[in-house]
């Protein structure tokens, strides 16, 4: 072995550079030890500890090179490699700014930008963490996530209430805030109507029908399906009504929901009386106005001329035997259709049955008049919503059209942001050539990206009858059944 020691006077390098270079050079073949260091007392100590003979009279500004190599050639090559390493320029020179990494939490994001709104679609079991973060940061928050615990919903809404903030959701799939569509939302024109909705597709139907008579929407604030339950107490509904009341662009307020808990309904009604603007309340349910009737009342309240919603397609065929089969992607639309159907035909089975009506087996086998909500949690766990992925419903549609017991198929088609970019084409291909009549409700606005008229035309071309009103579609479907006559 050859031990080499060199001293370079006044050749300052920082200790970290030299430690890195020492490590790199120690990996060279034929080299046992390489230590390149400034001649500080500590380093000289370490080097003599390693058995190197060091010259006297060095200062901490001198560089010491100590090499223990197999032979003089290896030692010389190491010194050459050292010189090269010392003269090397960093590869990243000039690339100084790494750019800020994306924020890790909502709170961190809110500290960086002047935002006033958060949209949360994280998994339901952790969404409360993010929503609480948003409230702590002073943001209004829309929780798209479902499966949020009821107790958490109550805690979040109490907090928002005290802080003057709004919690939309959980399970809020649709909202429009100042013309911006959030989640599944139709493209609406600005206008005087402000909507509070405890139902996503209900709100979409309402906005689409208002669009049909040229009536625009300022905000549509989803509050989540449980907001008007006794547990939650309508906290977000009341807060949203206040926000709409305070908004100068809103003339008329609409509240739509499935039937609320009676004491909550009373609270909403009495709160409406304290506001300075007319409030149209449309609770859905047996014996109550359907969404189309609520739309008509809203038009009336704003002084807009009402026209019955559009119908596209050929004249109705003659009534026939068999049962009604409703295949829906919108839960509220399915409910509305079932309520109307039950009033006419009595027994209506469903995976989301009305009170006192039968449910379905696990395979969702049709029994008589049958309605399936493909957007139900049971059918969306682990897969996209049927508004995005139509495959489950298309498969079922094929089977119903082939089922001799099926007299008429009723279905909904929902357009807007977030929805499938062309739902009509696949439906039309499946319907085409079928002898079973198909009636569709087409929920969409003039400005929706899918093209309302274009989607209607595709369905009509395949033989379907299309209505802008879900209630009208349901009534026409019922009228095609002999049993309903």
């Amino acid at each position: 072995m050859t031990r080499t020691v060199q001293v370079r006077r006044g050749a300052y390098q920082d200790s970290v550079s030299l430690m890195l270079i020492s490590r790199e050079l120690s990996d060279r073949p034929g080299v046992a030890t390489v230590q390149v260091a400034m001649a500080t007392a500590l380093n000289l100590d370490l080097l003599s500890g390693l058995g190197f003979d060091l010259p006297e009279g060095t200062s901490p500004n001198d560089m010491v090179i100590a090499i223990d190599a197999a032979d003089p050639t290896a030692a010389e090559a190491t010194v050459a490699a050292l010189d090269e390493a010392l003269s090397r320029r960093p590869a990243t020179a000039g690339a100084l700014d790494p750019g800020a990494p994306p924020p890790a939490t909502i709170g961190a994001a809110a500290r960086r930008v002047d935002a006033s709104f958060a949209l949360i679609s994280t998994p339901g079991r952790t969404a409360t963490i993010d929503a609480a973060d948003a409230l702590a940061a002073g943001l209004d928050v829309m929780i798209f996530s479902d499966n949020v615990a009821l107790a958490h919903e109550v805690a979040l809404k109490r907090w928002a209430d005290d802080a003057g903030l709004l919690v939309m959701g959980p399970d809020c799939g649709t909202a429009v805030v100042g013309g911006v569509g959030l989640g599944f939302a139709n493209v609406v024109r600005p206008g005087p109507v402000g909507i509070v909705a405890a139902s996503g597709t209900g709100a979409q139907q309402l906005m689409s029908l208002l669009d049909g008579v040229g009536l625009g929407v300022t905000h549509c604030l989803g509050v989540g399906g449980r907001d008007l339950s006794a547990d939650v107490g309508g906290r977000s509904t009341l807060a949203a009504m206040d926000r709409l009341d305070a908004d100068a662009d809103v003339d008329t307020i609409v509240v739509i929901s499935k039937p609320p808990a009676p004491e909550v309904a009373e609270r909403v009604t009495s709160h409406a009386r304290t506001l300075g603007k007319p409030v149209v309340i449309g609770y859905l349910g047996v014996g109550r106005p359907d969404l189309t009737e609520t739309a008509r009342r809203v038009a009336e309240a704003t002084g807009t001329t009402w026209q019955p919603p559009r119908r596209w397609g050929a004249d109705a065929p003659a009534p026939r035997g068999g049962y009604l089969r409703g295949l829906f992607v919108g839960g509220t639309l399915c409910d509305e259709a079932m309520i109307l159907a039950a009033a006419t035909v009595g027994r209506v089975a469903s995976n989301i049955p009305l009170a006192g009506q039968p449910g379905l087996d696990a395979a969702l086998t049709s029994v008589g008049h049958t309605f399936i909500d493909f957007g139900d949690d049971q059918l969306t766990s682990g897969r996209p919503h049927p508004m995005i992925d139509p495959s489950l419903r298309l498969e079922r549609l094929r089977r119903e059209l082939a089922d001799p017991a099926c007299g008429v198929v009723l279905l909904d088609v929902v357009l807007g942001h977030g929805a499938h970019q062309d739902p009509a084409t696949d439906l039309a291909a499946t319907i085409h050539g079928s002898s079973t009549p198909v009636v569709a409700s087409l929920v969409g606005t003039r400005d929706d990206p899918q093209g309302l008229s274009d989607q209607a035309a595709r369905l009509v071309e395949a033989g379907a009858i299309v209505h802008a009103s879900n209630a009208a579609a349901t009534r026409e479907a019922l009228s095609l059944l002999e049993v309903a006559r």
Partner: protein
Amino acid sequence: MSTRQDPPRPLSARTVVTAGAQLLADALTTQGVSTVPVTWAPPVAGTEEALTTVMLDRRRAAANAEAVRRMTSARAALVDVRPAADALGLQPGQFLHAGPPVTWERASGPLRGALIGAVLFEGLAATSEEAESQLASGRYSWEPCHARGAVGPMAGVVSSSMWMLELVDEVHGNTSWCSLNEGLGKVLRYGAYSPDVIERLRWMTGVLGPALQQATRAHGPIDIIAIIAQMVQMGDEGHNRNRAGTLMLLKEWLPDLITSGRDPDDVAEVVRFISGNDHFFLNLVMPACKLMTVAAADIPGSSVVTAMARNGTDFGIQVSGTGDRWYVGPAQIADGLYLGTFGPDDANPDIGDSAIAETAGIGGFAMATAPAIVRFVGGTVPDALATTLRMYDLCAGENPGWAIPIMEFRGTPTGIDVTSVLRSGQLPQINTGMAGKVAGTGQVGAGLVSPPMECFIGAVEGLASAAR
């Protein structure tokens, strides 16, 4: 926390913070909305329930803001230098050490080495073997520095005769202490106890301590927070680099040392000792940071970390909302560079109270200001900036008093929030020295380390049981 607005502010979704499905954020972008997507990841597994409880504790945001306010309004003046027996009432045979409490059986090599050295230094044993058997027999007692409001680098061992720097926060009425820094290499705090180590300690007790006491008393209080503010603008991050801070402190002391009337040779040796030890000022940064963090302690509902400390076996943290309770996990081996021929096999797990620097927002958190040391882990200058940027997201606030020039004089990230660590899965970065794992070895390297996640998991559970 926001307060009820009357009338309510107009609803606006012009700028939207999004967490979750990219599809929904994209739909907003196509509508011309300015979106700020967060890099959402599931919280650390098993913490969801406790995190939810803590996040729903409405006191948290205001309590954390208060913690940051107290940290950044704390002052730290060096007022005295005196023996631990006087300053802390430490008796012979009583010792302080770094990190959370630990028994002799679980104590790591460097902590044992430092305790052996302290026993020898106090003259309680004649040989290291004797000292070791006395320590193992339970004859002596020891407790964390933190339990007495003090802090100790590396092993952090303090015995009654050692001289302590005494710092006072007049705003909050707190006092903190730290020993005098011995220099690098074979030193007690890295677990070395050879005769030259003990000899140096005797000189520090006989000459250095009294000289600094006289100079400090003659000078009057020295504002350490102000020196840290300057050093942060001079390339020191206050943990692995304290070069500018050491020189600035020496500058304060020099006139009073010169006119002290002490033997000029002693004065020269004192000045040579301090100026030859770039880390001398670390022992002032640490108690200054302790004064900041102790001011932020005990705020109900606050999830801000008020101590991070290691004893070479366990890493422990304390959190404002649960007082002086320790949440511990196994100390990790630092990733870094080694002195001489030492390598990872020679290194002891993380040790020392010096992570109080990061707890107060400097050290690894101010990496951007110290590009000179960023290559300890093969990092680059952009990495240093990125590290500090990342730390902002873990913190409840910033310290405008300690501004980082290269970040447009943005204040250091301050007040680690336990919930942000668990939600992002990102751990605080700590710059640290590495001790040899065999008692008596001394320093083997320096590098970067993080606390184990267990500390934060424990802390959020503690906060959840104290939540409202």
